[in-house]
């Protein structure tokens, strides 16, 4: 075979393989890939039972409402506290306007061993989550936790100082239980736009 032809063949295979590996050169990281998948495919998330800070059981996602889910652990010093503030702001923004009462906000703890309802209630109090629109909750079992983290695409790793690091984000779930958008924690405009879109 002529070397030029062999090279062209290799080049075509190369572009095809790299295109497949990056969703058409659109996502180089796992985080980018899961955000792209949410927008492109809106995968269904499993309907799970979670225990809230009030000790009650409710469903995640909160069908037939739209749900904004974020993942936290209450003993976290920095990012989860900032996430709580952002969630409070989002709650306030949704309170008036066409989206009022149509959205449930849930902060899910991925440290259910430490985060019992009392601790979650403390976190709720710090950030003025009263349970009406926004609640703090934890998976009921260890398996549920793994199922939820896997479905939403969240990876939790120990941070070597007794806490955790994870890919923090706002997850917007449609009223029919599909994960339709994943946004930066502080992208409240984006979250609101996504909610308008899924509630149309």
């Amino acid at each position, binding site marked *: *075979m*002529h*070397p030029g*032809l*062999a*090279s062209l*063949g*290799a*080049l075509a*295979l*190369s572009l095809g*393989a*790299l295109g497949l*590996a*990056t969703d058409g050169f659109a*996502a*180089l*990281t*796992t*985080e*980018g*890939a899961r955000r792209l998948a949410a927008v492109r495919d809106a995968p269904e998330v499993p309907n799970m039972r979670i225990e809230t800070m009030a000790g009650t059981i409710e469903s995640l996602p909160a069908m037939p409402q739209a749900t904004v889910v974020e993942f936290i652990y209450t003993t976290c010093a920095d990012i989860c506290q900032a996430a709580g503030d952002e969630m409070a702001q989002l709650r306030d923004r949704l309170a008036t306007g066409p989206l009022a009462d149509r959205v449930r906000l849930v902060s899910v703890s991925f440290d259910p061993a430490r985060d019992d309802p009392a601790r979650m209630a403390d976190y709720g109090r710090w950030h003025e989550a009263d349970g009406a629109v926004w609640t703090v909750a934890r998976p009921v079992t260890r398996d549920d936790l793994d199922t939820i983290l896997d479905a939403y695409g969240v*990876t939790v*790793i120990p*941070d*070597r100082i007794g806490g955790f*690091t*994870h*890919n923090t984000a706002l997850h917007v779930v449609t009223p029919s239980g599909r994960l339709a958008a994943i946004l930066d924690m502080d992208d409240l405009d984006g979250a609101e736009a996504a909610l308008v879109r899924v509630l149309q």
Partner: protein
Amino acid sequence: MIARVAVGAVLVLVAIVLRRPIEALPLTHVLVQLPMLALAGAVLAPVLPLGRGEWNRGGWACLIVAGTGIAFWMLPRSIDAALSNPLWETGKILSLPLIIGLPLRLGWARAHPLLRGVLKAQALSMLGVLAFLYTHAPVRLCNAYLVEDQQRLGLGFLALALVLAVAWVAPLISPRAAPRASRTPREIMA
């Protein structure tokens, strides 16, 4: 022949057996384990009846395949996938020797010295860009690793770039390498 197969097998075995501690840090995952696996394929290249045909003249086809493999395993999402999915991990252990190490050597052996120089320069600049990216990125590029470990990998890229730069430039400034002052190309032609 047997010695080379043994060396390749030992490299792959060590990479597999020690994968937990090696993969715990991105620095050792990317700069120790991946090169070990690629080396396992490279040591086999000279004794395999491959890459001698006309199709591999100039080494281009093999180098393109190897470059693709390198680009693929440079994607942070590939590294994440290898850590979370055993199928990807198996694919990594197989593809590093077969898609990178082996073709890299088969192509390199037949590459024009000019092409080798270009690829060396390209490798150095790429490592420099990676070093900057991994030490300065405000976000984590792998979900499986901490940001401080990501920065250490960036410093590792920088160190590797410096070592390779010295290794590749040193022969060029040795007394025997350069044409003598009295024999410049213009004089030779004249």
